[in-house]
């Protein structure tokens, strides 16, 4: 990498998740091994085979003013809550609007709005629809509302790639800063997809756990008894800045957002490629981009969603691309899988791990599967070494999208 390339730093974190309504409460819950997954009691629950999910710990409508919340899809509400936290955490930089960007995405968009608006339209007619129906259902809505809220004019983007969306957003935000198009970019992912249709459709894809008798034990990455992912909702947002801009304003710097790697499997629309070639490519590119070696990487927050097919392929690819030494965890064991929100919250967790030098243990591993050589953190949290280290977040999505982001200690 060229020595004079713009370096990107992380200066603000925001999250609202199934285990906490902000970063501090979420991180505390993860370090305590708490699951945010619960049995659902909604009116459609009898129509689907999966009866549980990770609902946001703090309802965004309790945080946002009512006139604002009613114009937002839940995925937009969650994104705005996390973005405002991240922005305040960064010290609300007084950046020129034309130098401020947003890259925030969800995997599915305003699906609950789409479905409820369809019911309204069919049952009561077009003129009973809210005039805000379109901005509530469009997948760029979360990015757009954050852009309006913060006055961002340098470009507002939504990078839709299913469950890789949040990590891909952060990668594109890094590139916006490195290419000189912005000084500050607010980036991450959001999702609010706990709806009967989504639960039914993912169940139809045979992708979800049906461990209805034990919801908190259902998300069990790498455990031999895993039977699918657990749906969660929430948002994770980071504030990224060029190092020069952040240092000039005296910002607190959490970490470097040092490298990103993208690839596509070009293999199957939902199944992982069994040799992990695409994800090895993403990780290798990200390490090269960050100018770090595999040995520098001490921690990896895995995509590992608790599906039979994906979890082991990923860590075997980690062993090949990075090595067996990083402390690997899946925080999805506690939060469930936030789809497009996953890369957002898990980047926040990766950065917190670097900052606090601790890796939260994956819960629910009672009987470790075969073929796993990496150093999985389970049973109890593990400490990270002092000094200059790197940590990695992986996110993969239906469609074969792979995104790897590398963070380095500041």
């Amino acid at each position, binding site marked *: 990498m060229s020595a004079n390339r713009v370096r990107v730093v992380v200066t603000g974190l925001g999250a609202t998740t199934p285990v906490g309504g902000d970063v501090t409460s979420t991180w505390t819950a993860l370090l305590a091994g708490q699951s945010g997954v619960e049995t659902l009691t909604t009116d459609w629950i009898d129509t689907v085979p999966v009866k549980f999910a990770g609902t946001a710990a703090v309802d965004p409508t309790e945080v946002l*003013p*009512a006139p604002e919340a009613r114009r937002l899809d839940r995925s937009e509400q969650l994104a705005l809550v996390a973005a405002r936290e991240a922005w305040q955490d960064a010290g609300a930089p007084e950046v020129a609007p034309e130098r401020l960007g947003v890259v925030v995405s969800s995997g599915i968009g305003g699906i609950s709005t789409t479905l409820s608006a369809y019911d309204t339209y069919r049952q009561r007619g077009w003129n009973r629809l*809210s005039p805000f129906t379109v901005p509530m259902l469009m997948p760029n809505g979360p990015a757009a509302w954050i852009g309006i809220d913060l006055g961002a004019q340098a470009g507002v983007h939504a990078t839709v790639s299913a469950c890789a969306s949040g990590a891909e957003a952060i990668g594109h935000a890094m590139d916006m800063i490195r290419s000189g198009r912005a000084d500050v970019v607010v980036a991450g992912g959001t999702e609010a997809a706990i709806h009967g249709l989504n639960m039914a459709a993912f169940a139809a894809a045979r992708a979800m756990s049906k461990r209805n008798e034990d919801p908190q034990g259902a998300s069990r990455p790498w455990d031999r008894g895993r039977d699918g992912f657990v749906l969660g909702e929430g948002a994770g947002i980071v504030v990224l800045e060029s190092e020069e801009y952040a240092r000039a304003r005296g910002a607190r710097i959490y970490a470097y957002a040092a490298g990103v790697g993208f690839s596509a499997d070009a293999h199957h629309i939902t199944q992982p490629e069994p040799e992990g070639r695409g994800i090895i490519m993403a990780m290798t590119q990200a390490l090269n981009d960050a100018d770090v070696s595999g040995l520098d990487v001490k921690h990896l927050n895995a995509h590992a969603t608790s599906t039979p097919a994906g979890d082991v392929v990923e860590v075997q690819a980690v062993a090949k691309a990075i090595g067996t030494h990083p402390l690997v965890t899946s925080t999805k064991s506690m939060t469930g899988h936030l789809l497009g929100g996953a890369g957002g919250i898990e980047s926040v967790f990766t950065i917190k791990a670097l900052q606090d030098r601790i890796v939260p243990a994956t819960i629910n591993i009672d009987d470790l599967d075969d073929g796993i050589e990496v150093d999985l953190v389970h049973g109890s949290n593990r400490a990270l070494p002092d000094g200059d280290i790197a940590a990695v977040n992986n996110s993969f999505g239906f469609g074969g999208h792979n995104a790897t982001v590398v963070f380095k200690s500041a």
Partner: protein
Amino acid sequence: MAATEQDILESVSKIINEITGIPASEVTPEKSFVDDLDIDSLSMVEIAVAAQDEFGVEIPDDQLKNLKTVKDVLNFIQN
């Protein structure tokens, strides 16, 4: 018994408060939606949809644009 103008005003004020956050006490008959209450055209559509649900009175778009003040809405609903 028909609703009095005061009842209708209270309901309209409540709708406007829910949609815009403007305190119901500030929604008085002489107020202009645009000049006094800073309510934009899409918010007016939201108010019209809510009023339709509340009073069963449909407000067509070509009539909606003629409703400039709170009093205009009260008259439309009553008539």
